[in-house]
């Protein structure tokens, strides 16, 4: 094709100055290569002469067909063919204004049509820019731009071109989907990796969960996995919940009970009488009768977690706590209900307080009496886990209450979560945590804006009775600065597994360089530095180096972090602006 194009190219070889029109890439290429019209004409004349000779000899092999496979097959009407092809050749690639080649003049009109009239009228005869076929322009003819020239395609080439474009579009969509998948995986805090065969199976099963009658022996952790996925897809309902109920089950977690009605809820207790641990989240349909039924049936129950049981009223809480089931409870976590009143808490403390090892009271707006909260230290002697979050009024939880609680439970307490108890001050740190927090491993103090450097430094400097915390969360403790945070990290850097300093905005760059020189975090796996604006690429590089097993690093709102940061391959950095889909 190249040869023919070049030959057919009617070039103006005159480079000698004067006014020149715009030249295409091809023109300049030809000029560079030293190909000029004279050569081309000579070659053309030679071929013409040869052709004539061939015609005379009635030779059946077309000369022009040498680089066109089709021609070799059409030997029969050879002569005719040759004529058309000569004509076609000249109509090709005609982007020159001046034509010196005399033989090309006859095709001039057609050539000009392709060039200067970009929208030829329907019905005009043109040569296809792709296959050089003569065709009639229709409204459906495809217009294409090729190496700077605009041309039209014959119907068959149009079809191919349309198909090609459609395919390209499809590829583009698929590529976008894949990028989205990777970005989504990043948001889910996991690296995109090949799903396990179990994951594939679970995916298929959850898609077809309505057709499953029984899950069989798939292993308890797989069952729970399916259960969690169903809850996440909001497809845990009366029918699907049956799959998880059987006689041997001792542990159940339903993260979304909003579609499980009262009768079905009773079946949980009747089908699984051996339950030891039960978690019901979003259990707005959990009814007084259910709680009563549970207290009669679940004699082995030790751990109960309820989120949002707002149908249960004060009387029922009290009668539940007075039952034998409740008296065995070692773990009671309650969240999001305004019906849990002061009297309910008193009843809980009186009946279950002695055995309770794990207590969580979060967002309970019915609890609004300070004297009742002050009862906590008197009834809770063996706590290991304590959470008091988002009390109705921040004044309800004060330093004295916590100091009392800590002094009584100092032997056992390992987890202390006090989110949004904003009334707490340095006093609670210095007189509570420091002397009584010997066994603490998990300290979560979100939104305590009154504690500051003085208190923190006092606690974490020479705090030898505590061997190091594994989990620290000081999210939105906005009064803290480098001075205390460094001391905290200096105390616990050997043991820390998870650290959250989200929105501790006063941390500066200096701290990261100080950390870089002095500390390493050998077991830290999770770090949240969101909205700590001083975190930049350099800080990321430092963290990546001094935390060798860090898996997840969150940097939302830190707009100095870019994709250029030098971090380890296996460290997932989440929240950089440049990671957007």
């Amino acid at each position, binding site marked *: 094709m190249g040869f023919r194009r070049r030959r057919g190219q009617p070039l103006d070889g005159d480079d000698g100055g004067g006014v020149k029109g715009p030249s295409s890439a091809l023109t300049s290429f030809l000029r560079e290569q030293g190909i000029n019209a004279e050569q081309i004409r000579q070659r053309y004349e030679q071929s013409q002469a040869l052709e004539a000779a061939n015609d005379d000899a009635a030779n059946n092999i077309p000369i022009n067909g040498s680089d066109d496979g089709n021609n070799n097959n059409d030997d029969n009407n050879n002569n005719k063919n040759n004529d058309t092809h000569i004509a076609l050749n000249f109509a090709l690639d005609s982007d020159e204004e001046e034509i010196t080649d005399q033989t090309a003049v006859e095709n001039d009109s057609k050539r000009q049509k392709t060039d200067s009239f970009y929208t030829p009228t329907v019905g005009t005869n043109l040569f296809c820019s792709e296959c050089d076929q003569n065709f009639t322009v229709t409204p459906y003819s495809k217009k294409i731009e090729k190496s700077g020239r605009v041309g039209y395609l014959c119907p068959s080439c149009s079809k191919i071109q349309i198909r090609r474009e459609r395919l390209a579009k499809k590829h583009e969509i698929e590529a976008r989907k894949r990028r989205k998948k990777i970005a989504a995986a990043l948001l889910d805090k996991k690296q995109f990796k090949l799903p*396990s065969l179990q994951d*594939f*199976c679970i995916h298929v099963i959850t898609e077809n969960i309505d057709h499953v009658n029984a899950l069989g022996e798939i292993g308890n952790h797989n069952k729970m996995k399916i259960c969690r996925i169903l809850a996440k897809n909001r497809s845990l309902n009366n029918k699907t919940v049956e799959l998880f109920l059987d006689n041997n089950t001792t542990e159940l977690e339903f993260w979304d009970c909003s579609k499980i009605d009262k009768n079905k809820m009773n079946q949980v207790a009747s089908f699984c009488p051996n339950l030891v641990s039960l978690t019901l989240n979003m259990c707005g349909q959990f009814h007084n009768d259910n709680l009563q039924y549970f207290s009669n049936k679940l004699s082995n129950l030790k751990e109960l977690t309820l989120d949002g049981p707002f149908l249960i009223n004060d009387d029922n809480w009290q009668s539940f706590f007075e039952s034998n089931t409740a008296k065995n409870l070692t773990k009671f976590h309650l969240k999001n209900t305004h019906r849990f009143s002061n009297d309910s808490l008193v009843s809980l403390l009186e009946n279950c307080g002695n055995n309770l090892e794990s207590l969580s009271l979060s967002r309970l707006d019915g609890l609004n009496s300070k004297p009742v909260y002050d009862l906590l230290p008197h009834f809770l002697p063996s706590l290991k886990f304590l959470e008091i979050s988002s009390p109705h009024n921040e004044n309800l939880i004060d330093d004295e209450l916590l100091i009392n609680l800590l002094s009584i439970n100092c032997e056992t307490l390992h987890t202390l979560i006090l989110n949004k108890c904003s009334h707490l001050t340095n006093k609670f740190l210095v007189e509570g945590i420091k002397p009584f927090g010997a066994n603490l491993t998990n300290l979560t103090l979100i939104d305590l804006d009154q504690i500051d450097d003085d208190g923190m430094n006092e606690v974490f400097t020479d705090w030898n009775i505590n061997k190091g915390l594994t989990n620290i969360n000081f999210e939105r403790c906005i009064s803290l600065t480098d001075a205390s945070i460094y001391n905290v990290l200096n105390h616990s850097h050997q043991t820390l597994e998870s650290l959250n300093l989200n929105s501790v905005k006063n941390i500066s760059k200096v701290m990261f360089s100080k950390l870089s020189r002095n500390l390493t975090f050998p077991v830290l796996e999770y770090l949240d530095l969101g909205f700590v604006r001083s975190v930049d690429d350099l800080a990321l590089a430092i963290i990546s180096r001094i935390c060798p097993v860090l898996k997840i690093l969150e940097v939302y709102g830190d707009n100095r972090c870019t994709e250029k940061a030098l971090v380890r391959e296996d460290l997932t950095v989440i929240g950089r602006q440049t990671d957007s889909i």
Partner: protein
Amino acid sequence: MSEYVTLVANDGYRVVVSKKAASASGTLQSMLSEAFEEGVTGTITLHELDGPVLEKVAEYLCYNNKWATGGTSSGDIPDFPLPTAMALELLVAADFLHL
């Protein structure tokens, strides 16, 4: 030591996969250690699995072998085709094989 290992289903169906692919499964990998007969003979009989399931398992082993390394970020990994009817049976098998 052969590069390949033969997996035998309870109905006698046999499939040969490379040792490297088979070691994606924790269970198979530990069976293939020198200390056990399976490791010496290079043949593992899986009484729990029947032919069709074993075939699918072997297919996954090869799929995993092909795609697990590299191409994690490129994302152009095809989905693993899985017949719906077999999903539960295969899940039991996958659970057993730690796959």
